[in-house]
Each structure stands twice: as C-alpha cells, then as structure tokens.
C-alpha cells in the first residue's frame, strides 16, 4: 500500500458568524486520484483554499501534513513551492499572451530579467507533449478553445514540478469529448505516479476515475468511500443527506398543438462572413412540451439560440419564425421579448446578471415596463415582484437586496430564470440551465421547468449533459455542425442513439 502524501486533520475554518468547515479530515495516498464531492456551499473550495494557502496558516484550526511534514503556508507561493498546485474552475490565463508566455508567467526562464525565449518555447513544447496538446507554443490563448486552455493550465502546473495536483471542476465548461480526454490524461498521470485531487459535480466522471471519494456536507466530512463502494447513488445519498430516488421530478406532459416554429434558419459567422454557422434549421415546439437540443460543444446550439433571440449572434440571418402560426419579427432583443420569447443564457455571469447589483434590480430588468408606468418605477410593486419570484424559484438569500455576485451558482441561475419568468414568455429557451450547479439546485431547476411546461409554455432546453436531456425532455433534436441531424421522442432516445446521430451527421457535414 502506498504511503499517505497528504493528511489534513481537524480543519476548522470560521468566518465571522459562520463556521465554514468544522473538523474536516482528508487523507490522500500517494499516487491516487482522490475525488472531493459535495453540494455548493458544502465547503470544498474553502478546504482547498486552506490547503493551498489562500487562507494562511493561523486563520484556521487544525493541521496540514504533506509528505510527513507539518506545513504552515503563508500564501499560494509556499504551497506551490513544495509542489501543491491548484487549477481553479475559472482559468487564470492571459488571453492575449501566447501559450508559452502563459505557462511561464511569473516563472520565466530569465537571467537578470532578460527572457530566454528559446528555452521557454522548448520547455513549453515538451510540456504540451506531456498533456497531449498539439499546438504551437506561440499560439495566443484567445485563439484556442476552452478545452485546450484547460490543458495549458495543466501544463503550467506541470512546469512547477507538481506533486499534488488539485483540479476544481475541471470539466465544468468542457464538451463531452474534451472532458473524456482530460480524464484520460488524469489517469495517465496516475500511471506515472502523480497524486491528484479532483473536485467535481459530475458523478459519472468521479465514478470513472476516482480511487477514493470524500464527501463533504455542511462543512463536515461525511465519509470517505473506497473504490469498491463508489456508485453514483451512494455518493448522492451521502451528499444530500437523503436518498434521491428520482433525479428528475415526475411530470405528466400535457402536450398541445405546435405553437413555435422555426423554418430554414441560416446564420453566418459574425466575422468570417463566408462561414455558415447554422444551416437550414427546421424545428418546432408544442404547447406544454419540453424540447431538448443535444449535441457536442461547438455544434452551434448556443449560436442558433442567440441568433433567434434578437439576432444577438451572427450575420446574414435568414429564415422564418412563427408563434401560433403568426410570423414573428425578432430583429432585436426587445422585439423578441415583446413577442414573448425568452433566452436564458449559458453564461450567467457574462451575459445574464449585473453582478454588482442586487437581486431585485436583476429580476425586473427584462420587464421594467411591468413595474413602472410612464417610465417611473413603482418601488413597492418592484419589491413585491422580486419577493414573489424569490419565493417561487426558492432563491436562498438574506433579502432581495443581496448582490447577485455574492450568490452561489445555483441561486444565480434562479435569479436569471426569475428575470425571464417575470418577462412572461410563451417560448423559453434555456441554454445549459444547470451548468456548474449542485445536485440539489439542479433538481429545483428541473422542477421549475416542469412547472412551466405544465403551465403551457413551450420550452427548449440546450444541454451537453445527455442524461439531463433524457430526463427532462419530451422530444430531442440532435444538432451537429450547425445542422439538425436527428429528432427522436425522449421515450425511445438513449445516449447511444444520440451519439450515433451525431457521428452519422459528422460524415454528412464534411
């Protein structure tokens, strides 16, 4: 049996008024992949911040023993120095610098401040080979996709001679394919003897790679499961403290006539005018129906949705959209909103919320007319609307005056949803509605979707998580490379069928 590389004992971290961690224990053996799972707010990130020295020694109680020595980190530098490297969910790369510059940022091969570019690039090439990334070290970060950026982050960690690699939600924004590649890489590292800690919401991934799983709930260690006991159901039970027999709320779909229809929708790339991003899409949604759009990252799903929604993406948009047989003018976002179409973005922080303002102002933003008359806002009406939606969507906050930037991912998503629910749409397009949020919050979002469908709205859900689509949709369209390549009833759809449609479509497109 391998020796213990890291031992965190009785870690207790208190913020004024709140105990974020209480007596957490974590023991990681050399050469294993140790998964840490828990709901949002359970304390995973706080624990990692303690481990990496973001919260310096002295601000918490308990012991950290790394390779037999007790550590007192004063900052990230100390922990990195002895080989503990953390890769955060949000990547810390400079977009306008090259891969090589990013990898050695702050750690350049320099003598007296003069950089040896050749050495930098040679070492970068070697590192890139290790992570299986086939790119020129001179390529700018902004020109490669998120999946490859993630690999650059890992290469950067390797450059620091990492002994313990911590990955915080590494696949949150990756496509299925890139996620698989990343997990394979982790397994490869493991074969080479590296130890890693994986923080993830995606239990199937944990299931696939982890040797052990430690579950944290409400700032406490619940249990550490060995490989043989790891199963999704077991982890979920332990994470939420109750058994979630059904991950999707039950619903009885009452599906009516087609109310929303898109015909021959084509869109060209906003910059490369000759590149057709969306190719003659035809699609319809019935009243009370939840329609899923499946596809890999880059299939054009978000582009399709955004081009529909007030032409927020692309150029030379052609095609027809109709609601209840009446053609719609969706040439601007405000017209789309007026015509009762809503689009809930996949990127709530960049496109969905004003993070420096509070819940109340965010909820009413898309429908200020609903709380004002002649341009004057009725404060009381706005207040009751905000409180009403806070209750309806179960936003956990001290009051509607809490800044949205201070909310957890799941609660932020509920604020964005509230905003669009208040705009009273008939057609609701939800783009990755549960990305980066925990199991409990996911269930709540699914419940809201089910309720909206029961109210007779037409709902389109874009998601990269196939089980989710299969769990909540009535019908699924499969998209690939800007085309619809398959359509199936959810009842006879399966992950394999969807994948097959994608693969078949790939041949057609080329």
């Amino acid at each position, binding site marked *: 049996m391998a020796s213990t590389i890291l031992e965190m004992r009785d870690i207790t*971290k208190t*913020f*004024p*008024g*709140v105990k974020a961690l209480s007596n957490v224990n974590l023991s990681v053996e050399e050469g294993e992949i140790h998964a840490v799972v*828990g709901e*949002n*707010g*359970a*304390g*995973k*990130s*706080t624990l990692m*911040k303690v481990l990496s020295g973001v919260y310096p020694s002295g601000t918490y109680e308990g012991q950290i023993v790394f390779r037999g020595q007790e550590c007192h980190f004063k900052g990230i530098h100390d922990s990195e120095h002895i080989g503990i490297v953390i890769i*955060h*969910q*949000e990547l810390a790369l400079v977009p306008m610098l090259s891969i090589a510059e990013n990898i050695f940022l702050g750690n350049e091969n320099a003598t007296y401040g003069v950089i040896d570019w050749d050495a930098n690039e040679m070492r970068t090439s070697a590192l890139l080979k290790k992570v299986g990334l086939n790119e020129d070290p001179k390529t700018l970060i902004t020109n490669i996709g998120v999946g490859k950026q993630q690999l650059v982050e890992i290469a950067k960690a390797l450059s620091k001679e990492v002994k313990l690699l911590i990955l*915080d*939600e590494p696949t949150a924004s990756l496509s299925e394919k890139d996620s698989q590649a990343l997990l394979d890489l982790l397994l490869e590292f493991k074969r080479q003897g590296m130890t890693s800690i994986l923080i993830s*919401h995606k239990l199937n991934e944990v299931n696939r790679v982890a040797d052990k799983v430690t579950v944290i709930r409400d700032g406490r260690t619940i249990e550490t499961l060995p490989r043989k006991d790891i199963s999704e159901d077991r982890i979920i039970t332990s994470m939420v403290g109750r058994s979630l027999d059904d991950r999707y709320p039950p619903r009885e779909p009452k599906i009516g006539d087609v109310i929303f229809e898109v015909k021959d929708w084509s869109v060209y790339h906003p910059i490369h005018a000759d590149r057709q991003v969306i190719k003659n899409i035809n699609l319809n949604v019935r009243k009370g129906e939840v329609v899923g759009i499946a596809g890999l990252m880059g299939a054009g799903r978000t582009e399709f949705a955004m081009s529909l*929604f*007030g032409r*927020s993406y692309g150029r030379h948009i052609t095609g027809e959209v109709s609601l209840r047989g009446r053609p719609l003018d969706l040439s*601007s*976002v*405000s017209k*789309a*909103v007026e015509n009762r179409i809503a*689009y809930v*973005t996949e990127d709530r922080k*960049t*496109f*969905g*919320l*004003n*993070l*420096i*303002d509070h819940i109340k*102002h965010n909820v009413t*933003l*898309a429908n*200020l*007319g609903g709380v*004002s008359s002649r*341009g*004057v*806002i009725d*404060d*009381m009406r706005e*207040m*009751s609307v905000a409180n009403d939606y806070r209750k309806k969507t179960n936003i956990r906050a*001290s009051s509607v005056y*809490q800044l949205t930037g*201070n909310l*957890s*991912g799941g609660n932020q998503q509920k604020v964005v949803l509230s*905003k669009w629910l208040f*705009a009273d749409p008939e057609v609701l397009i939800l783009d990755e509605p549960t990305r*980066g949020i*925990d199991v409990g919050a996911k269930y709540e979002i699914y419940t809201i979707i089910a309720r909206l469908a029961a109210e007779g709205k037409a709902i389109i859900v874009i998601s990269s998580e196939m089980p989710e689509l299969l769990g909540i949709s009535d019908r699924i369209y499969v998209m690939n490379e800007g085309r619809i390549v398959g359509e199936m009833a959810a009842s006879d759809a399966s992950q394999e069928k969807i994948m097959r449609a994608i693969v078949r479509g790939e041949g057609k497109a080329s």
Partner: protein
Amino acid sequence: MSTDSAPAPQSGVAEDIKHGPRVAVSALTTNLREYGLIIALIVIMLFFQYTTSGTLFKPVNLSNLVQQNSFIIVMALGMLLVIVAGYIDLSVGSVAGFIGALAAMMMVIWPLGIFSNPLVVSVVCLLVGALIGAAQGYWIAYHRIPSFIVTLAGMLIFRGICQALLGGGSSVGPLPDSFKALSSGFIPDVIGPLTLIPPTVNAAGKTIVGSGLTLHMTTVVLGLIAVLAYAYFGFRTRRKRERHGYEAEPFPLFVVKTLVGSALALFLVFQFASYRGLPVVLLVMGVLISLFVFVTKRMTIGRRIYAMGGNAKAAQLSGINTERLTLLVFVNMGVLSALGGLIIAARLGQAVPAAGLGSELDVIAAVFIGGASAMGGVGQVIGAVVGGFIMGVMNNGMSIMGVNVDWQQVVKGLVLLGAVIFDVYNKNKA
C-alpha cells in the same frame, strides 16, 4: 467563481454583536457609510469656518461659493451618468469654453437682430451642446470607439474652435446684464423684505452696509416649502414601505436624519435670506439635482443606465438598446456642458479663450469623490453633488486662507485619492 465560496455573512459587524439591538446597529453602520460623504463635507466646512475665522459661512461668501462652483456641479450631473454607464468624457471643459464663446459671439459680435436675445442664444447653445454630445456619442455608441479617445479628440477640437472663434487670444464682452443674471443674479423678492433688526445709521445719516438683519422673504418661504416637502415625502415613503412590510431603517434614526437635514437646510436658507436671497444659479442647480435624483432612482431609463454600466452584455440581452442609451447619455452630457459654459460666461461677463480650461478634471474628480466606480454601474447623484461641493469648499476655503494655488492642487489631489482609497477599503471590508 469558486463553486462553493464560504457563505460569508452579510454584515460582519452586526454578526459579531451577540446582544443589544442588532437591527439598529446594522442600520446605523450601513447608513453611516451612506452619509459619510455628507459628514465629510460638514467636517471640511467646519474646518475652514475655523481656519478662516468665520468667513466661510458669511452670507456673501456662501453666495460666492455657489456661484463659483455651480458649473462644476451642473456638469457633474451629466458626468455621473457617463461614468455610471461605463464611459468617460474629457471634452466637457472644452465644450463649455466653446459654448461660452459661441454665446458671446451671438450676443455681442454677430448681427443677428432679435436672435441675439439672451434667451434665444441660450436655447440655441443648449441645442448645439446636444449636437456635440450626439456627435461624440455616435462614435462611442455605434462604432465602439473608446470614449476616452473620442472625447480626448473632442477636448482638442472644441478648445481649438473656441480659441479660433474668439480670434486668437482676445476675449469678447461685455455680455448683457440679463444674461449675466444666470450666474450672478438673485431671485426677486416678490413677497418683500422683512427687517428684523434695523441697520445702524452712521453720523452722516447713511446706513452702514452689512449691519442689521433684513430677510429676503421669498427665499425664506421657498426654503420652508422645500424643507417641509423633504420631510413630508420622506415620511410618506416611509409609511408606504411600512404598510407593505418593508422597513429596515429604525424610526429614531429616520427622525434624527430628517431633523439634521432640515436644520442644515434652514441654516443655509437663513444665511442666503439675510444677504440678497437665493442665487438664480442655485435654483437652477436645485431643480436639476432633483430631476437627476428622480431619473436615476425612480425612472426606467436611469435603471437601464446602471444595468448597462454593470454588465453591458447582460443589459443588451435583457432587451435594452445599449447603443441608443449610450448616445442619450452623451447628448445629456453635451447639454449640461453647454449649460456649464453659459454659467461660466455669465459669471465672467465675457467669453475668454481659457474658459472652463481643466474643469473636466474637477468634474470627474467630483464624481469619483462622490463614490462612483471607474468600472461603471455604481454612483449616486447626491454623491457627485456633495463631491462637487467638497471640491468647491476646499477651493474657496484655501483661497481665503491664502494658500498658494499650486498647493491647492496638491491638496485636492490628495483628497481625491484619499476618498477613493476610503471607498475601496470600505468595499473590501464589507
């Protein structure tokens, strides 16, 4: 975002206190931050009142103070919206200078007949200001040229046109008295003066200037109406909130706040009334300030500007026409710069090539001292106004003290830096 950042409590201060009236304390601390700026202004005023041996609060000096700084505050109202929207406007000083020159040329040099009437000229000048704002805003809104660059160009262009219009280094004047009243006039006393203490008569039988106490009754009445309205609306809003069950501020705090505010306002009214009454420009300013408070706090367009400054993409995807909104913000700024230019010219009684030179920096400083964020999305009208007055009082007080102009700039710079550091520090603590 980290997936599970620690659930930090809303107000650390209040959480630490285990006993006692938590709500009152937390309300006090949040309100202290809000009113800190006004308290700072009062402290600075008291400081200069002391160091100038009582000159600062003399009625004649208060009138001067208002007349000297009104154009900064007027322009700060527009600049606040520009900065909240996420932009900057460096051209306001030059635009003000150009409009002053244009007004002078129209009234004094060009043979325009009845169109050289000050009222007509003022209206034309405000329209020209709107056009200038639209011209700059167009590039910023529809072509995404950074506002810093567009308005830096505007700063050079309009200063140049201003100087060319005045024919090199000369000044144009004198301007008609009816125009000068905009800056140096006082509202007429339609009610009639009230003499409380008759002025002392000297041996020659003439009254000694400044002796006795005669009140400008129109000013007193207007002041009382304003204070009563302030108290009434404050109370009404409070009652309405209470009825709906939303009240955070404890009643005693509300009463103290209203009483202190009213007392201060009445004191100033009394000072003005005992001199020549309310300066016209203060009335103009008061109306504009109320208007902008209303627009930013209560109107949808104001809300949209804050949303755009906070997250332009999210605002756009919420159906807000951010381009048009940006254009409007700059049109508004252009109009207020023009008004500022008219006020400067009216005060000087002539147009000079250097009018408004460097004032863009005072205006921007006022907005930042008032707590606006350079990143956009944050800032209050009242903050900008108080920030403008802080700058004005410092100018005025240091001049009376005889502080050299060079050192005045150093002090103002330090105050700007200190105010912003204070803000950032407070934000991080919260």
